[in-house]
């Protein structure tokens, strides 16, 4: 579904990604781990071109995103949901409007269809009663669940999660991870950048360990966590586990 070839990204003279190659198949749950500053978030943001790669290619459903014009990119992003560390809900809109804005303004759904779809998604994330609230009236965990629902209303083929629980109070991490597990069980293709090793172990079909801009190790969670090959991964795991 997503094929990444020789992906490079520099900010000025600082090279963050130094050639990433990997393929994400439909239905896979890829969890990306690694030390901070290793480039894992940049990698994720290159997948939907929020960061424009400086080299290599990202092929999504058969088309090279690095060669697309802006219009094609916007169309493509409808199929790639993204969840951010800091939620980025639209504070001036009610929860319902947060969910329906994009599908209605992009003319993918009528207002009625979008409202209906929003209702279904709110039920799914367990926040039906918040439809008419504003984002700032919600807790962090609730905000992130709404952010997930907002991405799901677009009916994406793949969901990208950029440290979705890193900004949450500890007691709210569980509700968000629970929802993500539910999504995984339903067969959603997911790429998740996270520090939640428990989640990686339980949900991932594959774990990517990114360090210093390259995939230093890539394997099933069992292999990664019980018998890591490289010393760098061993030392990283010893710090986070």
């Amino acid at each position: 579904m997503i094929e990444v070839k020789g992906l490079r990204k520099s900010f000025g003279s600082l090279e963050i990604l130094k050639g990433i190659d990997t393929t994400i198949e439909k239905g896979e749950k890829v969890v990306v781990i690694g030390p901070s500053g290793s480039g894992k978030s940049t990698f994720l943001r290159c997948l939907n071109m929020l960061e424009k790669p400086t080299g290599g290619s990202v092929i999504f459903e058969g088309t090279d995103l690095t060669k697309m014009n802006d219009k094609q990119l916007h169309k493509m992003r409808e199929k790639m949901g993204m969840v951010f560390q800091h939620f980025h809900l639209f504070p001036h809109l009610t929860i319902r409007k947060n969910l329906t804005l994009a599908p209605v303004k992009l003319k993918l759904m009528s207002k009625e269809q979008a409202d209906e779809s929003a209702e279904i998604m709110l039920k799914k994330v367990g926040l039906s009663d918040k439809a008419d609230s504003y984002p700032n009236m919600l807790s962090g965990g609730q905000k992130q669940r709404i952010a997930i629902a907002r991405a799901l209303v677009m009916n994406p083929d793949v969901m990208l999660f950029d440290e979705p629980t890193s900004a949450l109070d500890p007691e709210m991490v569980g509700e968000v991870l629970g929802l993500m597990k539910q999504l995984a069980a339903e067969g959603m293709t997911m790429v998740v950048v996270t520090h939640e090793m428990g989640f990686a172990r339980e949900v991932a079909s594959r774990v990517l360990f990114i360090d210093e801009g390259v995939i230093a190790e890539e394997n099933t969670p069992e292999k990664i966590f019980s018998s890591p090959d490289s010393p760098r991964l061993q030392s990283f795991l010893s710090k986070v586990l």
Partner: protein
Amino acid sequence: MEDFFEKLHDTFIVDDRWKYLTNGLKTTLIITFFAVILGMALGFFVAVIRATHDKTGRLKVLNFISKMYLTVIRGTPVMVQLLIIYYVIFASVRIDKTFVGILAFGINSGAYVAEIVRSGIMSIDSGQFEAGASLGLDYTKTMIYIIIPQAFKNVLPALANECIVLLKETSVAGYIALEDLTKGGDIIRSVTYEAFLPLIAVALIYLVIVVGLSSLVGRLERRLKKSDRG
């Protein structure tokens, strides 16, 4: 006391002199109203150009023109601009003076509105742009539906203040012989040789309008605050 009422009578009642004030007020309000609309439209347009250029590097030519506009308008007094528009730009054309007033004050106000709105746009977290983009919204749609409404809310007090400033600034309209509120008071003064009453009346009328507008804005702000609760 007798004396005071006689003066009051002389100033406002004799020859229907109060009409200078009401007609003047009408002109002032018309000019302010349409100048605010023109200024807002112009200001938002320029602000979006400037912000887009700052954020994406596009629109170089439009940005250059916008910067020139801001420099010239903010670097010269509004009265000079008014005189130039009337006596230079429209020198050879017979043109409605109220229209000239609207144009001059609108163009002037637009420059200040532009900088207010631009600061509002730049203050919005870039995550909002990214969230819009991640949902497939293009830059324009993100701007219209996500960024501008938040920016507008943030700068509403400053914008309202600009409207109030504009209302007061129109008092120089008399320089192109527009009979606005200030000019109306001044005409009364010149026929009655009595300065105190007409000028105080003019000042009071401005004050009442400004206080009224301020309280309206306060109410609007409280309504917009609803989404900030929590």
